[in-house]
């Protein structure tokens, strides 16, 4: 069994609008048989936090195009993307690309 994982989630660039406008969430992912990875986190977010229009947040088992995922202030592409294993106190940011000015 893997222990519960406490992480800090942030949504920005408009992605927070899918979460009642709340930008920061401190959450604890429950204990489960295997370590938590980002792929499982996306499922957990959909079930527990997402308030509306899931198609604007996920596409298949990943985030929808135009949302960048940042793990501890680095592009998730540098960290293993969906396979990254969450550590306690990780900071995960989902940021929607802005257009306009």
């Amino acid at each position: 069994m893997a222990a519960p994982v406490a992480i800090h989630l942030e949504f920005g660039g408009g992605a927070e609008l899918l979460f009642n406008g709340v930008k920061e969430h401190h959450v604890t992912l429950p204990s489960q048989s295997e370590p938590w990875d980002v792929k499982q986190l996306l499922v957990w977010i959909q079930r527990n936090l997402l308030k509306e229009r899931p198609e604007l947040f996920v596409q298949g088992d990943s985030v929808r195009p135009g949302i960048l995922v940042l793990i501890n202030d680095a592009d998730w592409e540098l960290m293993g993307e969906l396979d990254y294993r969450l550590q306690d106190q990780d900071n995960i940011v989902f940021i929607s690309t802005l257009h306009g000015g």
Partner: protein
Amino acid sequence: PLKAKAALSNDDIMRYSRQLLLPELGVQGQLNLSKTSVLIVGCGGLGCPLAQYLAAAGIGRLGLLDYDEVELSNLHRQVLHGEKNQGQAKALSAASAVKRLNSTVECIPYHLQLSPENALQLIQQYPAANPLTYICYAGQTLPLVSASALRLEGQLTVYNYCGGPCYRCLYPVPPPRETVTNCSDGGVLGVVPGIMGCFQALEVLKIASGQVSSCCQKLVIFDAQDAKFRSIKLRPKQAGCAVCGERPSVTQLVDYEAFCGTAATDKCRKLSLL
């Protein structure tokens, strides 16, 4: 092509004296600026402060591209235009404002919409020492200083620079059109593009003067509500990228705006620069 100045005139020395004092710029940096051409795509909330500060600093040539006309609802953030310019092409209005500030800058307004057809021809007119251009095409190595602002947030990235990604490396699949919010729908506090446009100008001036942009392979996020900046390390240039990778499948100019999902007649479209 822009002719390189051999030396600064007396007027130049007087005008730029306060920045010539900086060891980071100096006379050589100023001469580098004077032989740089920059094409600014969009003379709106970002393009206005960007054009203003690039012209003030003595950039050699400024292309000002915009398809729209000035409207009253622009003036809360598009500070180069005035009430009397309502109805005038933004490119022309911006050009005359820039001229008032610095008549030594070669200023070229383009009242047109960037398209795959005209983009290449346009860029070929910006082949100076440090041509900065924003078009994604195969094998490109030209830096693009891109920014955006919406509501109380801003984002800035320097693409195609120092081993960092191109736009396509970062966003291999275009976002669904319905997820792209613009200023008409989402609103924007005018000074937020003001800050981001100034920030673009800073990075363009660093690159154009021969320094290194500190935003290499980074995304800078600004939250105006909390007055917080955050700098994110991005992925490097991707070997498998369809545009800049080892076996590019996109070998023609890409319609950048279409790729980003912003409509052609959007009154507040992506004002990236370059």
